[in-house]
């Protein structure tokens, strides 16, 4: 997790993550919207309550003034005094033109016309701390008249509005930040898993894969794609590694023998010994070059996913030309090569040279590893959606437990050391067959002998587009 190659340059942090930023931005929007709505509705409630109180005050004032003929201090005094007696919860004040209190249940006020809010300090009793909402009016004779009512409800409502604003603001912030944090943690944990896997792979553990949780979400989708890519890469790396190992390992034998032969040539005193040693070294060199080239081709075939230069091949022609070629060879070995021509027009899609190589190799194996008198039969038949090509012999066969092993590279069974070959033939055969989407099996050829069965996908009715060239 430091700056070295293979580590990330920084640790993934929740606050820096884009999911956190997105959620925080979202929370901020919610916060602003929520606060605006709350503030507006609070303002509206306050406003209507204020209006109600003012209306009530206006009513009281109108009531007090209603029975009075003239609006001056002298006429109002008795009316106010009786009003105070009848309803002590309403506050009244009547002052003469000099500011002296004539009647009322509160202290004298500065003469201000219109609606006003007063704190509780203007009232002698009771000291309940309640504000008063009221209305003042300058009278015709220069006196001043004030009517007020308890404004505690207004004050508590204002306090409620502020509390709501503060609490909902806090709530929005908490939910936004907390939600963002939790969501980012979840996302980051998933990303960190992927990232950790990538780093493990870079450190050499190429078989590591991102663990899937079967949640089928977008991360799973991404992880699935990445895993598929990793599988493909691993297969190719493995193939390259395999070739490198094969070459390093398998070239050693012929090169060592070449060294020995050259050594002998250098030491030889008799000219014919020297010539023989040089001839043998050239054979060793040829073998080394052949192994080298075969391994490279093998790697190429194993890495490909489709046969190069494919054609539609009539199997009868393929078998006939092979039988024509190898008939004389088998005869020279005292063996019989029998070709059973397939029924109907069986065809194969594939590379002609590569498929010829497969059959040639199987026939040569049968010829080389069987004694005189052996009968080698080449057949082709259709089995369901498959074409089965078989090369069967009545030779010694291969013990069942060795049959898988012979496909390995450079594997030569003990009994066959004397026959020529690099041990790559069957590896090549299997690689070619697999390249064509087929499979090869080695079976018993009752009562004795070996039967190599190559199962290939049968051609479909029409030639695929890539075949038409």
């Amino acid at each position, binding site marked *: 997790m430091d700056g070295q190659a293979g580590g990330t340059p920084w640790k993934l942090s929740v606050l820096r993550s884009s999911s956190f930023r997105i959620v925080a931005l979202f929370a901020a929007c919610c916060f602003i919207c929520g606060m605006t709505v709350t503030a507006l509705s609070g303002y509206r409630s306050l406003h209507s309550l204020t209006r109600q109180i003012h209306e009530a005050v206006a009513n009281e004032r109108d009531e007090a003034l209603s029975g009075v003929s003239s609006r001056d201090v002298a006429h109002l005094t008795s009316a106010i005094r009786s009003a105070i007696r009848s309803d002590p919860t309403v506050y009244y004040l009547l002052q003469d033109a000099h500011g002296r209190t004539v009647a009322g249940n509160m202290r004298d006020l500065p003469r201000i016309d219109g609606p006003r809010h007063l704190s509780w300090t203007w009232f002698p009793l009771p000291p309940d701390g309640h504000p008063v909402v009221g209305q003042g009016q300058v009278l015709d004779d220069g006196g001043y008249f004030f009517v007020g009512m308890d404004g505690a409800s207004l004050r508590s409502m204002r306090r409620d509005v502020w509390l709501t604003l503060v609490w909902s603001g806090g709530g929005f912030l908490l939910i936004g930040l907390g939600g963002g944090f939790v969501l980012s943690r979840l996302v980051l944990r998933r990303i960190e898993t992927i990232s950790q896997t990538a780093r493990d792979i870079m450190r050499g553990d190429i078989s590591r894969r991102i663990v899937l949780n079967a949640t089928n979400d977008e991360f799973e989708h991404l992880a699935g794609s990445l895993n598929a890519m990793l599988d493909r890469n691993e297969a190719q790396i493995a193939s390259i590694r395999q070739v490198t190992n094969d070459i390093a390992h398998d070239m050693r034998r012929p090169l060592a023998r070449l060294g020995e032969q050259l050594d002998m040539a250098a030491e030889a005193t008799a000219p014919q010994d020297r010539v023989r040693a040089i001839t043998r070294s050239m054979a060793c060199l040829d073998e080394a*070059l*052949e192994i080298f*080239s*075969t391994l*490279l*081709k093998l790697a*190429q*075939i194993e890495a490909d996913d489709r046969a*190069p*230069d494919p054609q539609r091949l009539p199997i009868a022609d393929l078998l*006939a*030309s092979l039988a*024509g*070629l*190898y008939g*004389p*060879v088998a*005869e*020279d070995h005292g063996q019989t090569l029998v070709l059973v021509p397939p029924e109907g027009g069986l065809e194969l899609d594939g590379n*002609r*040279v*590569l498929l*010829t*190589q497969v059959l*040639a*190799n199987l026939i*040569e194996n049968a*010829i*080389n590893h069987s004694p005189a008198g052996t009968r080698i039969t080449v057949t082709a038949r259709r089995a369901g959606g498959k074409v089965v090509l078989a090369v069967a012999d009545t030779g010694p066969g291969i013990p069942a437990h060795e049959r898988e092993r012979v496909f390995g590279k450079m594997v030569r069974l003990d009994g066959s050391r004397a*026959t*020529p*070959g*690099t041990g790559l*033939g069957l590896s*090549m055969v299997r690689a070619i067959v697999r390249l064509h989407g087929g499979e090869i099996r080695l079976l018993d050829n009752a009562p004795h002998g070996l039967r190599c069965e190559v199962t290939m996908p049968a051609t479909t009715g029409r030639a695929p587009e890539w075949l038409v060239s």
Partner: protein
Amino acid sequence: MTNEWAAAAPEILWVEDDRQTVAYVIGSGHLAHIAITVAEDGKRGRALALAGGWDCIILDRRLPGGDGLAILADLRAMGMLVPVLILTTMDGIQDRVTGLRRGADDYLVKPFSIRELSARLDVLMRRLRPPSQAMRLIFADIEVDLVARQAYRAGKKLFIQDQELKLLEYFMRHPNIVLSHEMLLQAVWDIDFPIRTNLLESNVSRLRDRLGRDAPSLIHTVRGQGYMLRVQ
């Protein structure tokens, strides 16, 4: 580097950047009957090749200044039919097919033996002389009817099978030239994979039988090199 020999010596252009290979081939003396001009890079090689007048051109594929196949493509685009042999280290599964399909007449993979190269050049330069569109081939008392797919010796129809006839036809097209094993396998049967049996020997011996055991032999074994069709 131009080796001036007899005026009739065939002229070959060899585009090859590996001086050691060139020195080895020319030094061996096997190609002494041929005048070889060597171009060491793709650019000069291309200019010389397009100048024309060659009996055969040998092209390497990995050259400084381009792929030999590009030169080949230019030659063929200009309608020049000079025989071209690709001589290269590239022997992937498709390389030979690609080379031949792009218009090469032969494809030889390095490392190669000088005899093999010499034999292939002989075949390539001979190819121009008799028209390959012939309906029948005649050599000594053998006659091959390419249309009816029949062979006759001294007027008598031979009982011959398809693969044997293909082999005979190739010999008849290239008489008096040593044909290497590799060449015969590739040219006649398209086999460019390793063979573990004496496939060629068996088939040649069978062909000799078909041509008549008692009649004078025409297909001769050249020890360590291959086979040759010639009259004694």
